[in-house]
């Protein structure tokens, strides 16, 4: 029995070194990926590979010595359990082969030192032979399990690091405003995740790729190869070998669906064909993720948008600050002067002059509306929106809104209806009227002249609902998703309907400040829109108030 065990161990130990070399090469790959600069030479078996095996054998030796010091009967009982400790440790620490070697060493030592006849590999009693066999099976199984656990842990750790890198990468991507920012982020990411040297070539206006010196240099062979590629033809992916260093370089296009922003050259290092192939697969996988991210963001457009957005924000803030106030005074002067002219007999008698004056007046009202919108937006963004609550009649609110927007509603038929049992609302009537007015203005803007806009105020289910129903272009489901976002304007209307995109945002913000909601319902394009302001109605009944006053 003991002979066969020993023979087995020999049989295993021969290919063991070959396998070890293989595993080491693979591990080196993995480490190479995460530890830049680790120079792997997978063909040779190194001292560092044998060391774990020596450690595992040594630890069995230590346990044997300890058991030997104790007297025999106790030792015999302790043997299986005592040996399991170094076996599992070796398997967890150094992998399956170290574990297996430890198991075999342990069973040999156990047989030799603790099983009768002592100091011989022979086993006499069948019971002891079974014990040893069971021990061997348990040792192998547990070392196998332990090493698998260790591999799994290592895999998870690696995955976590990858996710961490990817997360940092996506964070960097969101802060990219220029092509060079983007390329810098990509190169940084590759260096970190792949540990590879990367060089980038930015697509120039002429359709060629130019190397960007601050982002790493590539050998002449790579530069020549990239120079031969043109953005117009479409950058094809290729691999080339730098003759001077024997390094393999991968060339890959970086871009979104619509634009190729540049070519990235990555040093895949040198080594066996298999090692290179393995590294290439890893690089490809990361690049795939990079380009997926790029595609998802459609980075070129996103960057332009972000830049414009930033400028618009700055401009808007400046506008809100002092400019709006500076605009109010001239506007008052224009409006006042026009109204004086309108009353002059010489002008009111002349139809043409009068219509011109009226046109100026209308435009002043419109301009005033825009300035007011911007001021309202400032109030909201500056966080200064505190409703001044006062019991108000919903009729007064709706009428005020319609009156304030009368010039804009002149081309439409406006129908106003109220439920009889409308309760009073404890609201800032100015804010709610403004919200209602914004919705009215939208109704007028997006429905044909001469069509009807009906404003209906009802008392439903503990709420007061002000609905503005138009017969206009309607709202598509896609637009509906964006409604309520500051400065959103549907691409459908940007060219032909003037507006700032603030109106609906102001309306919904003002209504939200009253714990209310704005709902927009449309059966689709061209089928009209119903925009409703829903405000919570108070619980107190008006009837008691009525009786109080009935004198």
């Amino acid at each position: 029995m003991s002979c066969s065990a020993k023979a087995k161990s020999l049989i295993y130990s021969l290919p063991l070194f070959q396998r070890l070399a293989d595993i080491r090469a693979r591990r080196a790959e993995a480490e190479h990926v995460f530890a830049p600069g680790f120079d792997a030479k997978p063909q040779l078996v190194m001292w560092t590979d044998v060391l774990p095996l020596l450690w595992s054998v040594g630890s069995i030796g230590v346990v044997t010595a300890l058991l030997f010091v104790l007297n025999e009967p106790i030792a015999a009982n302790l043997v299986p359990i005592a040996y399991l400790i170094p076996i599992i440790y070796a398997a967890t620490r150094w992998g399956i082969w170290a574990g297996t070697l430890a198991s075999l060493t342990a069973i040999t030592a156990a047989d030799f030192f603790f099983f009768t006849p002592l100091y011989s590999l022979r086993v006499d009693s069948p019971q002891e032979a079974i014990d040893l066999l069971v021990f061997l099976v348990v040792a192998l199984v547990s070392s196998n399990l332990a090493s698998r656990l260790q591999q799994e842990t290592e895999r998870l750790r690696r995955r976590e690091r990858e996710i961490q890198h990817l997360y940092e990468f996506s964070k960097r991507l969101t802060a990219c405003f220029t092509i060079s920012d983007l390329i810098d982020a990509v190169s940084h990411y590759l260096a970190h995740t792949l540990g590879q040297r990367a060089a980038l070539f930015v697509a120039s206006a002429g359709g060629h790729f130019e190397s960007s010196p601050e982002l790493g240099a590539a050998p002449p062979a790579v530069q020549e190869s990239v120079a031969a590629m043109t953005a117009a033809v479409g950058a094809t992916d290729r691999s080339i070998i730098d003759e001077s260093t024997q390094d393999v370089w991968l060339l890959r296009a970086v871009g979104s669906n619509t634009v190729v922003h540049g070519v990235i050259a990555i040093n895949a290092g040198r080594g066996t064909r298999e090692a290179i192939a393995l590294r290439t697969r890893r690089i490809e996988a990361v690049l795939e993720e990079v380009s997926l991210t790029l595609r998802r963001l459609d980075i070129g457009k996103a960057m332009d948008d972000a830049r414009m957005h930033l400028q618009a924000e700055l401009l808007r803030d400046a506008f809100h600050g002092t400019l709006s106030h500076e605009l109010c005074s001239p506007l008052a002067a224009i409006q006042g002067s026009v109204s004086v002219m309108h009353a002059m007999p010489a002008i009111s008698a002349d139809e043409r002059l009068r219509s011109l004056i009226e046109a100026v007046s209308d435009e002043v009202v419109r301009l005033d509306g825009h300035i007011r919108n911007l001021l309202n937006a400032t109030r909201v963004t500056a966080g200064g929106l505190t409703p001044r609550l006062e019991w108000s009649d919903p009729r007064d609110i709706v009428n005020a809104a319609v009156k304030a927007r009368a010039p804009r509603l002149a081309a439409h038929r406006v129908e106003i209806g109220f439920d009889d049992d409308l309760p009073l609302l404890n609201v800032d009537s100015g804010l709610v009227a403004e919200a209602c007015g914004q919705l009215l203005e939208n109704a007028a803007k997006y429905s044909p002249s001469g069509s009807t806009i009906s404003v209906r105020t009802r008392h439903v289910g503990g709420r007061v609902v002000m609905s503005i129903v138009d017969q206009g272009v309607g709202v598509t489901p896609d637009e509906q998703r964006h409604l309520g976002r500051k400065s959103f304007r549907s691409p459908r209307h940007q060219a032909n309907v003037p507006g700032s995109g603030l109106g609906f945002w102001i309306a919904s913000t003002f209504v939200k400040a009253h714990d209310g909601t704005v709902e927009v319902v449309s059966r689709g394009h061209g089928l009209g829109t119903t925009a409703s302001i829903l405000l919570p109605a108070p619980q107190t009944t008006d009837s008691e108030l009525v009786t109080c006053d009935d004198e």
Partner: protein
Amino acid sequence: MSKPRNLVLLIDDEPKIRRFLRAGFEIHGFSVVEAENAADGLKIATFNAPDLVILDLGLPDLHGSETLERLRSWSNVPVIVLSVESIEDEKVRLLQAGADDYVVKPFGMAELLARCDAALRRYFKSATENPVVVAGPLSVDLVSRTVSLNQARIKLTRKEYRLLHVLAVHIGLVVTHDQLLKEIWTGNQRDNIQYLRILVRKLRQKIEADPNQPRLLVTESGVGYRLENRLETSVAD
């Protein structure tokens, strides 16, 4: 016109606003004096004894409300305030400080003139004058306390009449919620604007052609109510 021309004092630091105000008032038969700051304005108000003051709130030397207070310490002259912001609290404060009415920039001349007319009428109204106030189809006899709509007598409750009476006395001018509450109610009810809202609803049922879209008894959001004396509005207003 043998009637002496009313003198209006414009206190505003914006020359262009003063220019159109001067033109507008002169066309309508007023004489105009101008001041570009509060100090000048108060001086002129003392020496020239204007019949009407137009006061801008954003003066360089003194805030409008303080100017108003100083003016009110010795004069009852009607004052119409020009306000840039449409902040209700500010309007209410000014009305309580003694302004007769306000207009919010940008405004039309017709609107300002209507306020001025109403303020002047109230100021110069004497006991010998006709005690009947007319607003469109509505007439209120302040002496016999009778109200008629389209020549037909209508019956109002005591509080409804009281409300209409206060508004009729100030016809064309805004009357604040506080003022109305104090004129009509006593005790705790004075602070409850809900009573006023309900009372206005009921009065509108009796005097308005369409109570849902009132044209006589109009709401000044967040400030008060006004009994309109001119029902037609011009386009450029």
